[in-house]
Each structure stands twice: as C-alpha cells, then as structure tokens.
C-alpha cells in the first residue's frame, strides 16, 4: 500500500518501495494474549495494524533496529537531542485528542522546546488483553496523522500484550531523536533576571478536557485539549528572538510547576501578572465550579519561554502569526531575588504560587 511519506522521511535515501513486505491480515476483533506470543497472530497484528500505517523506508525489512543516515542529522545541527516519555491516559479518546496523538506530540514537544528539529520516533505499546482491534487502529491512525503533522517518522517499535487487569487498555512509550542547530544552547541556567516569561496560548485546556471526559464528575464542558506539536511555534520564536534563554512545555503540573522548576533551578524569583495569563472563559468557569486552580492544570500544546526583554515584542509578533500562537502573551518576568513564584492577583493582592503536592482534588462545597 502507498502512504504519503512523512516530512521527516523525505530525505532518507531509500526508495519507498524498497524492502517492504507483503502484509499479513488481522481478522480478530479483540486482542488476546496470542497477539503477543511471537507467532503468526502477533505478526498479523504488527503487519496489519502497525506496519500498514507507519510503513516507511527507514523500517526496511523489519530488522531489529531502524537504520538512520547520519547525514540527515549533521545537515540539521551538531548535536543529537534524544528523549523518551511514557503515555497513559484515561479515557483513551477525549475532546481534542487521544492517547496516540499525545504519544507523538509529547515526545516531539520535548525535543522541540530544546530547539531541536524532531526527526524520528520509536513507539512501544503495551496492550491489555481484550482491547478492541478497532481501538488500536484508531490510535495508530491518529499517531500516523500526528507524525505527519509534526514532520517526524515512526521508524521502530515494539508490541507487548499483557493479561486482563495488568494494564489499563493501552500504554504507549515513544522515544524521539532530533538535531539541535549549531550555536543554539537553550537551558535553564541561561535564564537571567529581567527575562520576560512568554506563553504561546491559553492554558489549562488539556487538564480540564481530560477531567471532564473522565465522566466521574458528570459535567459537560465544551473545552478541548490543546494537544498540538510545538515545533513550528518554537522555530518561529527562535527566529524572531534568537537570544531566547530557555523554553519548557507546561505539561503535568501546569504552568505553576514549570515556573517553580525554573525558580528552583536558578534561584531567581518569577513575578507573574494574573491579568496577563490567557485563560478561556469556559475554563475559568469550569475551575470555579470545581475549586481547581488553572495554573496547575496540564497542557499538551503550551510552553513558557524565557526571552530577553529587548526581543520580547518581536517574539510575541512572530508567535501570533503561527497557528497555536495567536493568544501568545507576556505573563511575567524573572526577578533577582526571592527564589519564589509570586503572582500579583487580579484583585490587587499578591500571593505565592507554589508547587502542587499531588493531584488537584475538587472541593466539597
């Protein structure tokens, strides 16, 4: 079968037709332990569900490893960026995304915020016995679309099936590699007092979308996950503000945790302006009802960038031209002392924004 090659695969010097095998067909409706047993059932699963979607030249003849030309990395930079992340989410599908999309964008974004050009991903799946094959197909299709959107190729992978109750439906681990352009050295230690803190868009949507989709709270909400690749946004930012010091995506623990990590890592304080933090009206209402603080809700398509003030306006203008950056805003700045994150409240007071201990739990009344 023909699939449109992912952008990242375009310069791999193999022809798309090379080395691709005839596919097995999977007729089962549900995954059983047999599909992890190493026999023909497993091969059918891999062929029909994974290879048929991800097939690309770098997979070659399904050797035990993907073989990637070094020239592609050296053409894009002088260092390899390498990262891995495990993804579990309940429910698997939620407004604005699904586990597959998360697994691709999560790893892509970990590479992107380091300034790297993400190129290749691996994908290891742990599947619970009894999962519908159709569910897997949907996740894989979503990963394929996300990889194409992010310009990366999924080139190697693994599948394990575990017994009922030994995993929650599907767990995905992806690792990713990319190239960091020469001369670019983003890092928390580069952050300086006077740097402004820029976020690319509205915060907290992913965490709220997951909470609402879980159904425990019987709340309907129009909020969609912000799940998206950050590569384009980061590249635009770095082009407009080449002296940017540090970027981090605000995933688990939200903006508050990201900023506290920076404050802890540098010893500098961070002063936030509550009125400048972009939040969706629906999200504010959702948090108000449940007694949640949006600053601690997870994001999957938002970062905080630490940019010298002189380049801040250029950075904002550049971000606002890119999809997912229209709501970019300066939300605060790095201060010399304190070593704490402090927010001037909308109301005219000030409060400390601390690390969260565990998960946020909705209040009783």
């Amino acid at each position, binding site marked *: 079968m023909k699939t449109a090659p992912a952008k990242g695969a375009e310069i791999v010097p193999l022809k798309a037709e090379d080395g691709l095998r005839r596919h097995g067909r999977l007729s089962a409706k549900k995954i059983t332990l047999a599909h992890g047993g190493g026999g023909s059932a497993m091969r059918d699963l891999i062929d029909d569900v994974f290879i048929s979607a991800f097939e690309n030249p770098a997979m070659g003849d399904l050797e035990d490893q993907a073989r990637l030309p070094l020239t592609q990395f050296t053409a894009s930079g002088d260092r390899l960026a390498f990262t891995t992340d495990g993804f579990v989410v309940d429910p698997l599908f939620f407004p604005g995304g699904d586990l597959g999309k998360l697994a691709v964008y999560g790893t892509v974004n970990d590479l992107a915020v380091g300034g790297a050009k993400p190129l290749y991903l691996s994908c290891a799946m742990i599947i619970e016995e009894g999962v519908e094959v159709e569910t897997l197909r949907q996740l894989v299709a979503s990963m394929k679309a996300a990889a194409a959107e992010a310009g990366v190729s999924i080139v190697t992978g693994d599948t394990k099936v575990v017994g009922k109750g030994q995993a929650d439906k599907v767990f995905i681990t992806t690792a990713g590699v990319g190239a960091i352009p020469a001369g670019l050295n983003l890092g928390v230690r580069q952050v300086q007092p006077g740097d402004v803190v820029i976020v690319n868009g509205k915060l907290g949507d992913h965490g709220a979308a997951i909470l609402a989709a879980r159904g*425990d*709270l*019987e*709340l309907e909400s129009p909020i969609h996950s912000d799940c998206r690749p950050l590569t384009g946004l980061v590249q635009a930012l770095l082009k407009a503000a080449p002296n940017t010091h540090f970027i981090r995506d605000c995933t688990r623990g939200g903006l508050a945790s990201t900023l506290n990590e920076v404050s802890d890592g540098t010893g500098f*304080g961070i*002063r936030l302006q509550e009125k400048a933090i972009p939040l969706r*009206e629906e999200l*504010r*209402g959702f948090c*108000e009802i*449940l*007694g949640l603080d949006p600053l601690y809700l997870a994001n999957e398509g938002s970062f905080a960038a630490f940019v010298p003030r002189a380049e801040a306006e250029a950075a904002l203008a550049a971000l606002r031209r890119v999809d997912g950056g229209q709501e970019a805003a300066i939300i605060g700045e790095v201060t010399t*002392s*304190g*070593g*704490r994150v*402090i927010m*001037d*409240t*909308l*109301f*005219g*007071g*000030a*409060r*400390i924004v*601390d690390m969260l*201990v*565990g998960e946020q*739990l*909705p*209040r*009783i*009344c």
Partner: protein
Amino acid sequence: MKYADEFRDSALAAGLAKAIAEQLDALGATEETPVRIMEVCGGHTHAIFRYGLADLLPKSIEFLHGPGCPVCVLPRSRVDDCLAIAMKPNVIFATFGDAMRVPGSKGSLLQAKGDGADVRMVYSPLDALTLARRNPDKEVVFFALGFETTMPSTALTVLKAREEGITNFSLLVNHITIIPTLRAILDDPEMRIDGFIGPGHVTMIIGTEPYGFIASEYKKPLVVAGFEPLDLLQSLHMVLKQKVEQRCEIENQYARVVPNTGNAVARKAVEQVYETREHCEWRGLGDIEQSGVQFNAAFAAYDAEKKFAIHNASVPDPAECRCGDVLKGLAKPWQCPAFGKACTPEIPLGALMVSSEGSCAAYYQYSAVHNEALEEARNAKAS
C-alpha cells in the same frame, strides 16, 4: 467571567480597603492590639489567601480562621470508619475529592485506593446513587460529609433511592452543624474574638435567625458573607461599622444569594431524613454535644453505620498537633510544633494541612514558611 469578575474589581477593592483602614484607626486598633475577626467558613479562608486579601489590609486587623471546613474537622476515627467500609469486598466507596487525602490512624482513602479498595471521587451524592444503579451487584457507600450546606443534597438522594427502591446504596453520615460549635468557641475562656464573618452557604439553608444568640448573648457582630473578595471586604467593613457604631447585630451582606429565612424546602428534606446526634467528634475540638445529625429510624436501611456494623470509636489526635488551637484561633499554624516539620502537605498529620480550605495548608502554601518572599512581595508593591 460574568457574575464573578464584577466582584473582583481591584479599584473597588482599594476603596474598600482604605475605608476599612480608617475604621480600624477609629477603633484604635494597632498591630500589637489588632481587631480580631473570625471567618467561620473554610471557603472564606481559601478566598482570603487566594486573592491575597491580607496584602490590601493594615496589620491592625487579624483574621482567625474558624472551624467551618468540614474536611478539616474530620476526626481520625471517622476516616478509620471510611477505610473499614472501603476495604470490604464488593464495596464501592464514593466520596467528595478533598476527603480522600485526610489521614486517619491507619492511613487515608487515597492510600486505601492504592491498596486495592474501590474508592471513587464524585461531585454530588446523586452521582453515587448513579453508581449504585449501574452496579446492582455491588454495595455503594457514599461518605456524606459537610455542614448544612450539603445535608439537603444527601437527604434528597436518600429520598430518591427509597423512591426507586434501590437497596445496594447507603450513606456513612458525618454531617455536622455549625451553631453548637460556634457556641463552644465563644464559651472558651481563652477566646478573644471581636466579630464574625458568617458562612454564606450554610446560611443559605439555615437562614440568619440561628445566629441571633451571638449578638444578643455574646455581644459580637456577625455579617453573613459571600465568597468573592469584594464580598469579604464589604462584610469586613460592615462588621467594623457595627464596632464603630457600638452595635451588635446579625447582618447579611450576601443577600443576592442568601435569604434571611434560608431555604425551608431544603430544611424540610433534612428533617425528614435526619435527627440530631447526641455526640459528635470534631478533629482538634473534641466532642461537641448535638453538633451533628444521623439517620432517623425510618431511614435506618440507608445507614452505612448499621449496614456495616460500624462503631465509631474515638481515636486521639496526634499528641504534637495543635489543630484545636488553630481551629479556635488561639494559635497561628506556624506556632504548632509539627507545622512544616512532621506535618506538611506531602505528609499531613492534621486535616488542616490537607484541604485547600485548611488554614495550615493555606499558610504553608502561600506564606508562613515562605514568609520572607511574601514580605518581599509586599515591599515591592509599596515601593
């Protein structure tokens, strides 16, 4: 956000803060001899910290953070009861989220969940009833926690369960009432309170009349307040106005939500299902007579205490805890020897460190151990 942002206007707040400062001067209050106002409700404590209210006000006013956070006054023995039921086979134990972290003598519901108990977080007791409907082969137990605010919803849920003939559903009731506890606090000889900010949500049910004795017998003003920062400032202004004019009355700032007569329909539902409990244990405060409710005989079938033969045995608070003094406003959280050491949000000894409405957690997160930073924020604002 409509109907919320209007109550968070910083210009209006600055005006009110200035007027409050003038009242405090007129009363001769100083940092050493401040006017001491107890906000009874945990929701108010949370709002005071969340909006940085203390930053706007002079140091000649001191907030005492009262016992009106149902999670904070949950005794260890009651959490033990929850665990005893939750760990039984075939039980789904449903609870409001913030009760899950409260430690009993054998751990919290969150830990029990980790040990394999089927503990579910719900937002309403009706969600627990839905669980019972969907799981007819399981026993679903809802932890009915809270003041008068949540009593009507649990009472109506039980009435609905009876109407539908659902039998695999019961409630572990830890509903408490604020009035006997306010009296106990006022009777404490060490106590010095100049006035009260009254609980808005509780009053929505019980009305303002039950507070009458605070003004008539104890000569303290009380103003029922809403939960937005401007509500709190206005209520404070009303309390101080009474002080300046040497009045002691029960006033209602939250009239846009709270009728002075409360909610008679809700009270009727509560009276139909519950009766006064002779003794009720509060964390830190101990046993307070008639400060809670239990199912009456007609609804015994829905009483998890009976269904699971639970005998609420008192467990003393950890010896080093000063939860009681903090709840009564006799000690600030950081004056407790356990604060920030044996008792932190990661490993809470007392429930005041658990709930976002608990004053220990609020101080720990927003100030106290990080006091210098908050000071710096204040100084930066002034300069």
